[in-house]
């Protein structure tokens, strides 16, 4: 018998995009000791809440941003998407500072997946043991086989569309491949000419009947929030079912400090809502606020940092983009930016002269994003305008280079405070030689593909994508922040469950794996496989 374990797609309304059931949402009082309090309603937090609510846990999710209604709050427009990003200030430093802004985390129910592009590849089995295999990075205290059933389950829930995937652990997808646009067609031709395999997908975008989720309309604004409900984000994939099972999602509530009993147990979280500081009691707390905000909250609460590990090993992927100019119009703004991709260069190949690898994906920036490319290539004034008028003739490929985790790449607390009186985050980032070699090789590969496709000219820029790490999972308390059950070393009932837990990042986009980790943790918590279970858990 097939158990239905997530009804979100049926709970959505066919005529409205907003999540139904908000008016009926269960609410708790601050004094109620809930079974679980989750900070952050993004990729990790939402899945965990949805799963455990189905096991009867009484759960409150504190979310700093708004409870979005896509119909009224989002626009089909690049600049107008500004409110969906985390816009409170952070300091960036180091030798290779990472620009945040729209290329960073979200702010509101659904988290960063509200504006993620939609690529949902799995990690490769090798990602969990890069130290053993390749002598770089770190080994995870868990391995791919433990996650595999959760990958299959979450891929069905999103649902993921794409061709059969030949790389890593080969697998198929629940929905078939989407049609692709002219820009992706050109890039794919070039790859074929170079002997590089590409596949359509994998993207978390409906491509067929899926409950009350409409089909994609190929309008291309995935990074601005999908107003159609075709692209997956927790807002449509897990929040409806979570509400139906009694979760309270308390939006516009910024957690500022985790409270403890002074020993090894936390007792709740202090947060600010409507300008007032309040405290929600809870028998267990999960931090799921993204790779910058999770370390920031732990540091501000002075928790889990006994081994000086909180905020360390934050990673970004090198995400250089190369665009090729073609005689025909390609209008790359149409269709979801993620169309075809390749993981042929994912694993270490000694002949390339560096460890680990990169993936290749179509990216297709909209006009403002494209203008930033043109500027980065050195053009302003008349030259900029002329390049921009040529927008419809370009096809853009991106790489995701696996940059290595380094202890000094760290989130720490800055001297300045935000409007809540909480010290803001500072993020320092510097590359190592292996990173530079990887990015250079990836750029050369993208250029080769586009030239083989007949590009008359190419334009290259350097950028980053996807922050993960900062509260990494480790086998011993000295090497990281959490154990293999996501519990903060030295604490009995404090967990971290988001992208910050990753010890390595592979060259896959991280969102699917973040959800999968949450799904695994939920299963273990529900089955009481995690030792020293929170005391007041209802069954």
């Amino acid at each position, binding site marked *: 018998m097939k158990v239905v374990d997530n009804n979100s797609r049926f709970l959505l309304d066919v005529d409205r995009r907003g999540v139904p059931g908000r008016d009926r949402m269960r609410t708790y009082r601050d004094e109620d000791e809930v079974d679980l309090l989750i900070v952050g309603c993004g990729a990790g937090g939402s899945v965990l809440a949805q799963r455990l609510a189905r096991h009867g846990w009484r759960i409150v999710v504190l979310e700093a941003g708004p409870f979005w209604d896509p119909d009224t709050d989002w626009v089909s*427009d690049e600049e107008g998407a500004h409110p969906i990003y985390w816009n409170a*200030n952070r300091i960036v430093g180091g030798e290779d500072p990472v620009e945040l*802004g729209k290329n960073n985390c979200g702010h509101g129910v659904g988290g960063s997946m509200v504006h993620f592009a939609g690529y949902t590849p799995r990690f490769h089995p090798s990602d969990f043991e890069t130290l053993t295999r390749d002598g770089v990075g770190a080994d995870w205290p868990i391995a791919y086989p433990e996650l595999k059933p959760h990958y299959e389950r979450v891929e069905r829930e999103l649902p993921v569309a794409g061709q059969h995937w030949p790389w890593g652990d080969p697998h198929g997808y629940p929905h078939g491949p989407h049609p692709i646009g002219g820009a992706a067609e050109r890039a794919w031709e070039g790859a074929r000419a170079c002997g590089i395999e590409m596949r359509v997908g994998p993207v978390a975008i409906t491509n067929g009947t899926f409950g009350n989720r409409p089909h994609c309309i190929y309008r291309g604004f995935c990074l601005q929030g999908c107003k159609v409900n075709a692209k997956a984000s927790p807002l449509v994939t897990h929040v409806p079912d979570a509400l139906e099972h009694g979760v309270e999602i308390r939006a516009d509530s910024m957690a500022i400090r985790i409270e403890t009993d002074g020993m090894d147990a936390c007792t709740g979280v202090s947060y600010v809502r409507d300008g007032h500081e309040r405290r929600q009691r809870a028998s267990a707390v999960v931090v799921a606020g993204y790779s910058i905000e999770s370390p920031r909250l732990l540091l501000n609460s002075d928790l889990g940092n006994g081994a000086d590990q909180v905020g360390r090993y934050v990673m970004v992927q090198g995400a250089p983009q190369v665009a090729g100019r073609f005689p025909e119009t390609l209008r790359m703004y149409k269709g979801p930016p993620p169309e075809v991709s390749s993981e042929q260069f994912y694993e270490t190949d000694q002949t390339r002269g560096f460890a680990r690898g990169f993936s290749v994906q179509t990216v297709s920036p909209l006009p*403002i994003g494209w203008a930033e490319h043109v500027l980065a290539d050195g053009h302003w*004034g008349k030259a900029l305008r002329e390049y921009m008028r040529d927008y419809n003739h370009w096809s853009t490929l991106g790489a995701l280079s696996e940059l290595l985790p380094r202890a000094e790449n760290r989130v720490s607390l800055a001297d300045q405070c935000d409007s809540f009186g909480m010290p803001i985050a500072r993020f320092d980032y510097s590359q190592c030689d292996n990173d530079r070699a990887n990015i250079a090789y990836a750029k050369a590969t993208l250029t080769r593909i586009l030239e083989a496709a007949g590009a008359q000219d190419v334009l290259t820029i350097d950028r980053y994508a996807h922050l993960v790490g900062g509260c990494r999972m480790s086998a011993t308390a000295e090497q990281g922040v959490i154990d293999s059950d996501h519990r903060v070393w030295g604490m009995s009932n404090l967990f971290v469950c988001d992208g910050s837990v990753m010890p390595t990042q592979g060259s896959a986009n991280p969102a699917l794996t973040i959800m999968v980790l949450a799904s695994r943790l939920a299963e273990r918590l529900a089955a009481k496989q995690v030792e020293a279970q929170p005391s007041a858990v209802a069954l």
Partner: protein
Amino acid sequence: MHGGGGDPDGLPRQRRGTTPQMHGRYPDFDVLEQSEHWDEPTRRAVLARLDPPSLRFFDATQARTLTAFCDTVLAQDRQPRVPVLQLVDAKLHEGRLDGFQYDDMPDDRETWRLVARGLDEAAAEHDAASYGDADPESRLAICEAFAEARLSGGVWVELPVAHAFAVVMRAVLAAFYSHPWAWNEIGFGGPAHPRGYMRLGIGQKEPWEGEEAFVIDPVADVRERGLDHPTEHRG
């Protein structure tokens, strides 16, 4: 016009709707004619850019300098012009910032004000009372020095030039290329919700999208005409 850094020979005049300076590659495409097909919040957000509020963040002196800078760096050399500085001003006034600050930089709002001062200081070296008073050649030369991080002294002792250029240009580009006139110029179909796009393939367009009436490979053309180093080229 070759050598003078003008528009490419034969770039069509706009026949329908408006583009910045009334030229572009899609002379019969006016994205605003499609606005009835956009969802309401999107329509409201886009149309508001046609009529931005008057300045609230910058004072008159700063505004004069920065308007001249925005127009130079975007080659808006005649009417109609996208009101770039007004759009930037609204953003800064409302505190719509981008959520990060380089550790060697002040707040973006402070950066903009310092840039205004720095441009005026640079104009003084060209014997002009302010950047806005400088002749077009000098404005171009200062812009070029700014883009190439060659400004020094005065404000620039404290303010890293390259980061400052990055900060102001991020806002300038977002303002200009979020404006529907600029979409007309480049043939961007604009918001497509709830209607969507259907013709995705090479060389295809929706029936309502513009026909491209002029093609030139900008890489070769920009190089030949030396547009990336306009003053150097002429000097």
